[in-house]
C-alpha cells in the first residue's frame, strides 16, 4: 500500500498489460473464506487490493472490516515461504498492539499466492485525500490537534516492550482521520515483504524520511522527522516528494502560509533538523511543545501578521532633505556630478545639490515633464508634453537647442553613436544628431512611443502603445518586431543578449535580442508599465497588482514577491544589497533584494509613480505630493 496515491494507477495497468501476474480482484458480492462478504475495492497498491467487506459472523449487525490482499510475486519457493513467514510475524506483532490510533487486527490467513489481513474498517479519509480536496490551507488548529494525537500514537509505539516499534513510514497517506476527527495510523509496513526487490536504478524517495534512514540507522527520531515532514506538507501544501530531498529548511512554513504562528513554525523546524540529536528527543517532548503552541496562541484565529521586528519603524525614517516643486512629480530624478535633475508636472526642470537639496536653477517648458532626464556631455536631455526634446546646459540651465515632434513626449532619451533616440506620442521614434540637433531619421510605428529606447550592438529596441517591440538598426530599418497582446509602455533592458520588458498584457517577457524569439514569459498578476531591473541573476519589476516581483532570470521562476497596497508603476532599483521601489500607495519601500524582506518604508503624501535613483549612500525619489525626497540608502 505504499504511496498508493501515486503508484496505484500505474501498477494496475502494469498488471493488465504485462499479464504475468494474477491480477483479477475479488468481485463485489463474492465471499472470502466463507466469512467476509466483499463489498467494494477501497484501495489499490503494488501488492494487491484493499476491500471493504462485511463480516458474516455477525449476521444481525453490519460489522465492516477492511480486507488487505497481498499477492506473493516471488517465483522461488524459498523466497515465497520467507515472505509469508515475515508477514505472519508482523501480523502477530500488530495483534499485540492496543491503541485507539492503531487499527485493530482481527485475522490473517494465506491462501495459495495470496495473503489476507483482516483489519478494523476505518470510516474516514486519509490526510493525502484531505490535502487534495481542501481549497486553500487546512486550518492550523486542526493540524495541531492531529499532530498531538500522532505524537500519542508514536509515543505508544516507541515505548513498546521489549523492543520499541519504529513506524518508519509516517506520511499523509498513512494517516486516516475518522469521522470523529481522530487520527489512526495505517500501514505498518506489514506488506513490505511482498513488494519484491528492486533492480538497477530506481526512482522515488519517500519524501518524508530523514537522511539517516537512508543509512539504515533509523531509530525513533526518524519518526519525529517524518512527522515534522508530514506537518510541513499539511501546513504548506507543498508535496515534499516533488522537492529535492531534505530541503525543508529552504521552505520555511510561514513563507508559504504567513498565517501560521511563529511558535508552530518553530516546532516543525525542530522536528525537521538534519541531525537526530537536534530534534525533539521523544514523541512526548514534541507533544509538550505542540501543547505549548496551543496554550500560547490560544488557537484562536491567527493574529494578523506581525511586522518583522528587525524592520525599522516607518516613523524613524527622516529624509535628509526634501524639495517642493509646484506640481506633482511623476517622473524620475537623475544624478550627475553631485547635482540632481528632476522634471515636474509644473512644466519645470529643476537642478539641485544632491547633498543638501539647495536649489541651483530651473528651466521652464510649456508642458508637464514625466520622464527621466539624461545627462550627456555637459547637457541635460529630456522630453516634455510640450512636444519638444529640450537640450539645456547642465551647469546653467540655459537652452542649447530643442527639437519639435508632433506629439507630447513621455519617453526618455537614450544617446548612442552621437545620436539621441527618443519616442513621442506622434507615433514616431526620432533619431537626432546631438551636435546639430537635426533629425537623422524618424520611424513611423503607428502608435505612440512612451517606452524609452535602448541601444545595444548597433540595434535600437523600444516598445509601442500598440504592443509591439521594435528592433531597428541605425539606418531605421526594422530588423524584427514582436507583438505583445497589449501596450508596451515599459522600457526594454538588455542583458547577455536578452531583451527584457513588461507589457500591459500582464507579462514580463525575455526575448532573444538578435531574433526576437521569446525565451520565456512570466505572468504578472496584472498589467505592468514598470521597467525591470537586474541584480545577480535576478530580475525585479512592479505591476498594477501592487506587487514587486523577483524572478530567476535563467528559469523564469518567481523567487519572491512583495505586496504593496496599490499599483507599482515605477521601476525598482537595486543599490548595494537593497531594492528600492515606490508604489501608488504613497510608500517608498526598501527591501532586501535577495529575500524580499521589508527593511523599511517611508510614507510620502502622494502616489509614487516614478523610479528612484541612488548614489553615494543616498536614494532620491519624487512623489505626486510635489516633493523630491533624499533618503539614506
Amino acid at each position, binding site marked *: 500500500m505504499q504511496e498508493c496515491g501515486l503508484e496505484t494507477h500505474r501498477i494496475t495497468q502494469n498488471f493488465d498489460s504485462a499479464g504475468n501476474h494474477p491480477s483479477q480482484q475479488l468481485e463485489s458480492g463474492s465471499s472470502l473464506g466463507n466469512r467476509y462478504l466483499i463489498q467494494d475495492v477501497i484501495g489499490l497498491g503494488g501488492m494487491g487490493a484493499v476491500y471493504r467487506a462485511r463480516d458474516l459472523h455477525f449476521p444481525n449487525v453490519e460489522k465492516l472490516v477492511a480486507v488487505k490482499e497481498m499477492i506473493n510475486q516471488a517465483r522461488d519457493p524459498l523466497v515465497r515461504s520467507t515472505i509469508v513467514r515475515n508477514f505472519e510475524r508482523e501480523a502477530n506483532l500488530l495483534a499485540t498492539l492496543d491503541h485507539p490510533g492503531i487499527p485493530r487486527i482481527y485475522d490473517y490467513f494465506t491462501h495459495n499466492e495470496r495473503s489476507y489481513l483482516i483489519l478494523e474498517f476505518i470510516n474516514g479519509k486519509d490526510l493525502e485525500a484531505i490535502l487534495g480536496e481542501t481549497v486553500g490551507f487546512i486550518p492550523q488548529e486542526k493540524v495541531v490537534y492531529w499532530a498531538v494525537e500522532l505524537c500519542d500514537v508514536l509515543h505508544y509505539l516507541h515505548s513498546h516492550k521489549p523492543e520499541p516499534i519504529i513506524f518508519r513510514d509516517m506520511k499523509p497517506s498513512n494517516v486516516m482521520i475518522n469521522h470523529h476527527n481522530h487520527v489512526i495510523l495505517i500501514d505498518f509496513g506489514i506488506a513490505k515483504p511482498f513488494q519484491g526487490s528492486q533492480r*538497477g*536504478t530506481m*526512482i522515488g524517495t519517500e519524501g518524508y524520511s530523514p537522511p539517516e534512514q*537512508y543509512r539504515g540507522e533509523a531509530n525513533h527520531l526518524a519518526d519525529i522527522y517524518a512527522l515534522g515532514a508530514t506537518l510541513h506538507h499539511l501546513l504548506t501544501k507543498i508535496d515534499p516528494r516533488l522537492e529535492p530531498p531534505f530541503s525543508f529548511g529552504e521552505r520555511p512554513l510561514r513563507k508559504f502560509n504567513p498565517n501560521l504562528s511563529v511558535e508552530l513554525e518553530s516546532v516543525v523546524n525542530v522536528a525537521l533538523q538534519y541531525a537526530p540529536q537536534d530534534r525533539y528527543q521523544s514523541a512526548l517532548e514534541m507533544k509538550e511543545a505542540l501543547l505549548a503552541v496551543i496554550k500560547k496562541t490560544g488557537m484562536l484565529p491567527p493574529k494578523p501578521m506581525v511586522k518583522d521586528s528587525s524592520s525599522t519603524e516607518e516613523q524613524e525614517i527622516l529624509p535628509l532633505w526634501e524639495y517642493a516643486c509646484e506640481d506633482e512629480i511623476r517622473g524620475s530624478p537623475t544624478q550627475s556630478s553631485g547635482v540632481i535633475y528632476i522634471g515636474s508636472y509644473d512644466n519645470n526642470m529643476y537642478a539641485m545639490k544632491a547633498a543638501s537639496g539647495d536649489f541651483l536653477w530651473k528651466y521652464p517648458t510649456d508642458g508637464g515633464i514625466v520622464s527621466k532626464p539624461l545627462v550627456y556631455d555637459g547637457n541635460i536631455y529630456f522630453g516634455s508634453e510640450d512636444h519638444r526634446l529640450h537640450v539645456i546646459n547642465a551647469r546653467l540651465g540655459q537652452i542649447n537647442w530643442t527639437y519639435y515632434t508632433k506629439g507630447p513626449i513621455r519617453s526618455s532619451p537614450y544617446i548612442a553613436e552621437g545620436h539621441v533616440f527618443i519616442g513621442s506620442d506622434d507615433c514616431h521614434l526620432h533619431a537626432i544628431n546631438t551636435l546639430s540637433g537635426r533629425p537623422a531619421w524618424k520611424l513611423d510605428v503607428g502608435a505612440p512611443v512612451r517606452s524609452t529606447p535602448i541601444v545595444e550592438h548597433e540595434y535600437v529596441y523600444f516598445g509601442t502603445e500598440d504592443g509591439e517591440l521594435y528592433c531597428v538598426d541605425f539606418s531605421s530599418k526594422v530588423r524584427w518586431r514582436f507583438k505583445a497582446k497589449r501596450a508596451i509602455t515599459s522600457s526594454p533592458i538588455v542583458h547577455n543578449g536578452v531583451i527584457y520588458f513588461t507589457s500591459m498584457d500582464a507579462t514580463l517577457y525575455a526575448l532573444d535580442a538578435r531574433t526576437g*524569439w521569446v525565451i520565456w514569459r512570466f505572468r504578472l498578476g496584472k498589467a505592468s508599465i514598470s521597467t525591470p531591473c537586474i541584480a545577480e541573476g535576478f530580475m525585479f519589476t512592479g505591476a498594477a497588482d501592487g506587487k514587486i516581483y523577483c524572478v530567476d532570470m535563467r528559469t523564469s521562476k518567481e523567487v519572491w514577491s512583495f505586496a504593496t497596497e496599490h499599483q507599482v508603476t515605477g521601476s525598482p532599483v537595486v543599490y548595494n544589497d537593497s531594492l528600492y521601489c515606490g508604489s501608488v500607495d504613497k510608500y517608498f519601500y526598501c527591501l532586501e533584494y535577495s529575500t524580499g524582506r521589508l527593511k523599511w518604508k517611508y510614507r510620502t503624501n502622494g502616489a509614487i509613480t516614478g523610479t528612484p535613483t541612488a548614489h553615494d549612500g543616498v536614494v532620491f525619489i519624487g512623489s505626486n505630493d510635489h516633493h523630491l525626497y533624499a533618503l539614506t540608502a
Partner: protein
Amino acid sequence: MKRFFEKLRGSQPSTSQEIPTRPIPKENIEIISKPPYPRLEPPQLIVGCAQSVGIQRDHNEDALFTLTTTLTGDFRNVPFGLYIVADGMGGHQHGEIASGIAIRSMAGYIIRKLYTPFLSLKPNLPEESLLEIMQEGVQDAHTAITKQVPGGVTTMTAALILGNRMTIAHVGDSRAYLISNNGRIEALTRDHSLVKRLVELGQITVDEAAIHPQRNVLYRALGQGEPFDPDINSIQIPDTGYLLLCSDGLWSVVPEAEIQSIVQKSKNPEEACQSLVDAANAAGGPDNITAILIRLYT
C-alpha cells in the same frame, strides 16, 4: 582570435619582476599554444556522438537524438540544434522503451512546434516561449511514458540551441557540461539523485555515496509522479567551447578533468566522443554509455 592571444600575453608575468616557477609541462604548452578551432563563418555547430552498451550490461537502455541544421531566415542564417540524452530504467525492457519514447516524444514535439514552422514560406513563430515549449515537450514525454510503459522511467537531458541561445531541459542524472577552451568544465545540470543530495548535505561522504545501496535512486525522472517539475533554463552560449551531454555511464567512471582533457586533445567532436566512450569502458564500463559533443561557435 587576436584577442585570445592578447589575453594570454596579458596574463603572463612581466619580465621585470620575474618570479621563478616550475616550467610548464610540454603537454600544457601544447594546450595553451594550440589555437582554438578555426572560426566558422557563418556560425555552425559541429557535432559528434557515440554510444556503447558498456562491458557489464547486456542491453542498451540509453537513447540519444541529434539534429543539427541551419534556419534560413530573411536576413540571417541561424544555427539550430536539438540534442537529447535519455537513460531508461525499469524491468521487463521498460527502461529502453521509456528512453526511446522520451526521445521520440520530445524531439517530435520540438520539431513540430519550432522547426517545421520555419520551413514554411512565411515563417510564423510559435506564440509560446522557448522555456514553455521545452516544458510542454518534457510534459508530453512524461505523459507518453506514463501511458505507454507504466513502470518504466527515464532520465532526459535535452539541449536546444537556437542562434546564440541554449535552452536546457533536465530530469534525472544525465548531465550537460560546458567545456571551455581554458580548461574549465562546468556542469549545467544538477542530478536529481538521492545520494547526491545526501552528499551535498554532508550526511555521507563521496566515498560512501559510491557504494551506497541506494546510489541509483533518483528523486525525479520522466514517468514518475505528478505534478511533474523538470529543471529548465536558458543561457547565452559562450564565445567558444563545447557542450557535452552524457549519461551516468560516462560521468560516473570518467573524472571531469579527464573528460575535459580528452575533449581538448581530440581533433574533432566525433573522435572525442569515441575516446570518451573508450575511457568509460576502460574504467570498467559498468553501465550504458552515451555522449554527444557539440562544438560551439561565436
